[in-house]
């Protein structure tokens, strides 16, 4: 009962349950790229600019390309809370039994200091590794970002 009451009071940094909001607003998308028959390659999506760079046997064609976006809003008592994102070491994009791998997640900005209940937003980029000869098609997956609130 007492814990429930504390939840109603919406003190974000008073316990393990964040009382503000945090959600994924936009998926990360790498557009259309051609694999190579002979060599693997990578596509890196810049978290801040959404720009794309490639290495190896990859041809980038554009299309629907953007970093992921995570957003939220502070709750009562979150003024001056510092928010950072924690991201996984890797994630997998699959189609049938084949896959491409996401690594080296990056976050922009590195941290956000909350002002009252103002909204906040992070963009997330990553590097996609495309194996040689990866068959054509759309590969999809997901990854989880953890917003960590400190210094409340």
């Amino acid at each position, binding site marked *: 009962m007492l814990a429930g009451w504390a939840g109603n009071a919406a003190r974000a940094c008073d316990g393990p349950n964040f009382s503000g909001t945090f959600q*994924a607003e936009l998926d990360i998308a*790498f557009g259309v790229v051609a694999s190579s028959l002979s060599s693997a390659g990578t596509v890196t999506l810049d978290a801040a600019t959404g720009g794309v760079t490639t290495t190896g046997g990859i041809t980038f064609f554009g299309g629907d390309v953007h970093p992921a976006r995570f957003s939220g809003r502070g709750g009562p008592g979150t003024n001056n809370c510092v928010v950072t994102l924690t991201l996984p070491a890797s994630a997998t994009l699959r189609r049938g039994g084949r896959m491409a791998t996401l690594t080296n997640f990056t976050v922009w900005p590195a941290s956000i200091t909350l002002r009252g209940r103002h909204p906040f937003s992070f963009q997330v980029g990553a590097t996609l590794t495309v194996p040689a000869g990866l068959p054509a098609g759309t590969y999809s997956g997901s990854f989880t970002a953890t*917003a960590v*609130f400190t210094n409340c």
Partner: protein
Amino acid sequence: MYRSAGQSIWNTVARRLAAVVAGFAVVSMAATAAQAQASADATAGASVTIANPIAVTKTADLSFGTVVPSATAGTVVVSTGGARSVSGGVSELGGTVTAAAYSVTGYANNAYTITLPASATLAGPGTTSMTADTFAHSAGTSPALDGTGAGSFSVGATLNVGANQTPGAYTGTFNVTVAYN
């Protein structure tokens, strides 16, 4: 538990309790807030569309047909359209004359480049040989795949026939490379 079907009852209970214990709660929260850390998770999707690599397949060989040498060197040209012409001391004598032909597959509507060899060697009887050069393709200055991701082009070249070239069949190979722009 406050999101369960019994939410309204629990809220009522909770509020009453809150009125009773509020004084204690404020004290305890003030004590713990300074070092508290909270976190929340959210999951985003990730996607990429993989297009087929560009690929080229030969559908016809380049063939200069049958020509007759003389004491004077000459050339045999097969155009990208498969038409043969001769110059110098070389004369034509029928045979099968074709331009090389290629089909290309890849990402629809995308431009690509064609790389042709500077020269190729055709080996004949014994140690004899001839050289083909001046390769040309029919795809123009801006080759591009069509809306289905298909393309095609043909390749012609010039064969250099030496003076008194040894009679016989001469064959060789050359590589044609395509790449996305």
